[in-house]
């Protein structure tokens, strides 16, 4: 076969610049990319197959492992889908606690994203700070759920346990701390002219086509399109909370960074609101013996706004004690595949990792 003219660059799977275990094969001429293809499957575990073999509650251990940085939206989605099929009521306090957990998870993910976005531009100090601060959020999770990363906390019918004593105060304390740190982050990252130079005008998505191409989450909001599942299709108690969506019109990496930066602030605000408004009461509508727990036949499509975009769960039950089909669609399913491939054409090699981070690609949810 004739040798290609363009040089092949393998960005991943064993590469510091790739987000997770995936591969983007770049064909470059000079340092301009002429073609790129995303290759996934390095993390494929066959979750959806495994869930067919496990009962409704066992599947919980699997669901949260679909997205490593932010497992809670998955748990919440799955729980809500099951509840919708079964028609199970969820106590109000449980809904508030779920919202609290989701927002904490969002904060944690945004902090992790700060690290990724700045690290791919060479600003490692930011990553060190924000991941260090994320650990305080993880500490909260650990106290609440017993797990640092995988929580398995939001169950069908409510949450696994009530808030521990004094938890609210700790949360508020952490939020105060994070708000203070945010000023420093601004100084280090968002007010940094070099970062601005790197980010502005890079990774542009056509706002006209964004919806059609399946862009969701912060990239869509950065394109000037107000779209947030929390507003559009409110779940849990988001309709009782007061918050704003991030907004930018530049539709580039800089816009996405600003949207996320703004939403981090909003999330801190939301957590405070939740703590303030949280009612007392039951936290769990107990399910029957999990081994014999049968969910009536039916299907449900539910979605959540995670930090990286919209998570959709299509759950089908055939009336047995095991799910028929749980099909999960994460934001990266579109972002990292067709969208990224299109965006990278004509981009600079220096910007690949940068753009990928701004889209919030995360391979486990593509492959499951």
């Amino acid at each position: 076969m004739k040798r290609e003219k363009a040089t092949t660059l393998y960005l991943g799977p064993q590469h510091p610049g790739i987000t997770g275990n995936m591969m983007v094969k770049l064909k470059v001429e000079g340092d301009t990319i002429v073609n790129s293809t995303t290759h996934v499957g390095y993390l494929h575990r066959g979750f959806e197959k495994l869930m067919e073999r496990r009962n409704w509650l066992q599947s919980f251990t699997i669901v949260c492992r679909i997205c490593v940085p932010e497992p809670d939206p998955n748990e919440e989605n799955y729980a809500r889908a099951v509840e919708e099929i079964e028609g199970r009521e969820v106590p109000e306090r449980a809904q508030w606690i779920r919202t609290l957990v989701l927002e904490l998870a969002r904060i944690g993910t945004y902090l992790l994203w700060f690290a990724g976005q700045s690290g791919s531009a060479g600003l490692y100090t930011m990553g060190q700070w924000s991941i260090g601060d994320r650990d305080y959020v993880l500490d909260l999770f650990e106290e609440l759920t017993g797990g640092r990363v995988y929580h398995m906390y939001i169950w069908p019918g409510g949450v696994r346990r009530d808030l521990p004593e004094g938890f609210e105060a700790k949360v508020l304390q952490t939020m105060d701390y994070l708000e203070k740190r945010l000023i420093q982050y601004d100084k280090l990252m968002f007010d940094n002219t070099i970062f601005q130079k790197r980010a502005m005008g890079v990774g542009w998505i056509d706002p006209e086509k964004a919806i059609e191409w399946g862009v969701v989450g912060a990239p869509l909001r950065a394109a000037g399109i107000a779209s947030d599942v929390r507003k559009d299709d409110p779940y849990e108690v988001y309709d009782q909370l007061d918050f704003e969506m991030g907004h930018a019109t530049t539709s580039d990496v800089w816009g996405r960074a600003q949207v996320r930066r703004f939403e981090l602030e909003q999330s801190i605000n939301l957590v405070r609101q939740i703590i303030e408004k949280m009612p007392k009461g039951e936290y769990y509508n107990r399910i029957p013996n999990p081994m014999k727990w049968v969910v009536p036949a039916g299907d449900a499509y539910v979605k959540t706004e995670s930090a990286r975009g919209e998570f959709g769960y299509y759950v089908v039950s055939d009336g047995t004690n095991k799910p028929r089909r749980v099909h999960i669609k994460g934001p990266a399913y579109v972002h990292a595949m067709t969208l990224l491939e299109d965006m990278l054409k004509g981009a600079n090699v220096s910007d690949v990792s940068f753009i990928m981070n701004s889209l919030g690609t995360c391979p486990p949810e593509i492959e499951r």
Partner: protein
Amino acid sequence: MGGAILAYLAKRITPMLSSIVSFLAISSAAVVFFTMTSSTDVVTVSVRNFTLQFGLNAYSWVFAAMVMGISALVSLYNIAYMSGKDRLGYFNLNFTLAIMSMMGIVFANDWISFFIFWEIMTWSSFLIVVYNGIDEGKIGTKYMIFSAVGGYAMLMAIVITNSQIDSFLIADLINAYPTFGHGMQAMIGILFLIGFSVKAAVMPLHVWAPRAYSDSPMSFTAIFSGLLSKMGIFGMAIMFISVFSKASIGDTFIYSQVIAWLGGVTAVMATFYAVIQKDAKRLLAYSSIAQLGYIVTGLAIGTKLSVMSALFLAVIHALYKGILFMAVGAVERQAGSTNLEQLGALIRKMPWTFFSALIAAIALAGIPPLGGFVGKWMLYESMITSTNPSHLFLVILIFLSSTAAFLYVYRLLFGLFLGQEEPEWDHVKEAPAPMVIPMVLMALTLILLGYAPGLLFEPIANGMEFLGFENVGWQMSSLSNIWGDTVDMQYVWGSVVTLFVLGAIFITIKNRKSTRYVTTKDIHTSGEIPEAHENLTYAVDFYKPFERAIEPVMRKTMDFYYNHFGNGLESLFGFVRKIYTGNGQTYAMYVVIFLVILLLIGEQIFK
């Protein structure tokens, strides 16, 4: 003495039909030259009322030695390089003629013989440029037109001179120049400079050079870029040092300033162009223009150190550019391509070629301890120590060009010799011995000149004294500027070589048993296994980021040249081509006609 050599050469011209004979002729001429140059006889040939005078002096000895030495080696290379090609007789005739005419130029003591040999040189090289039979992109025509402009300018200057002093002797001009009026001084100077600048490819007159260098056979390009262009330098040096320095102060200043900056701009722009080239020959062609830019700058500055550096660089440039062109020629012959984006990893197949190219490249980049550094050092020092502030800014231009030279040097070596080993180049073998030997010999000369640049300083200093400098001091291995700061090449050379050898020995014997060679396919590709058709060499648009950084500069000049200048020239060509058939004889005829016309009416005009 000179006549003897010329006669010797001339005798050989007719029967010469093969490269070997050409080599023998040139090398025996070289032998004769190097063994019998002690005398400085003057041979006078009288043709009717023209008196042609030939002779050798200390200054022309430098150039004569350079021409003879290098062309002897190149003609050895030529044997192997040209073997199996068509029209060898035609090529070798012109090849030898060009060399012969260069000797003639160097030996000429009067302007008429100078001009005659100049024209022989021009059209013999023109015939080689169009050797392939097709004048692709009108390179030959372009070359011819520029040479014609230069030739006419020079001829006009000669005629004017003659009308003024009634003598064709170079020495007479030098003596009489200060007596000329202001306008006359300027006119003669500018006309001569145009004539020489064309050959030396100074910026506005360089357009012909890149293609002409890259499209002629490599064995000739080594001569073309290495020696032929130096004839321009040869003339320029005479003009600058002996002639202009005697003009009124203000004029000297302006000439030297303008030319020095032109040289600097030439160096920078040509370097930038060289960086973005995709073809090894074209890259070297632009690099030649850039290097000539340094030399011109050095001459124009006109201090002792700078002229010495210019002459030193002229010789060294002939050496290293000769090697590089020959190496590229070897690659072209063995692999059939000089495309930097396709070739790669010939180092294991052509180690000797790589070695000589590496040495030449290091010299070109001006990195110690090789000869190239000596020239560069003197050039910088002469500019920094100059009393003229404009030279201090010029030094930045030269530095920019010189630093950017690393880029193309690396690109050249990387593109040809390094990178992924691809199966499509498996058949390539080392070039035959007649090609390798001259390259290696010249490379060794470069190393030697790094250790003892004084070997070259001696004739240059003599030559400069002949041209009018006094007390040109030199030392065998120590360089010094007028502030008294020195660099001792002996120590530099010694320490670099010692350390390098020690380092190489250390890294070789450390864990020698468990050090293993692996193929270039066994590289870090993020854990993936590349497919066979996937290209892993990063060679296409190697300096894309740099191109983007210098884009504003390049765009402006490109627009300038190609839209205005270039277009104008193209339409000019269209017209001129009706007159010029591209045939050397017709051209020669025109020259003669022009000469006659000038001789007839010149006296009336310039009285």
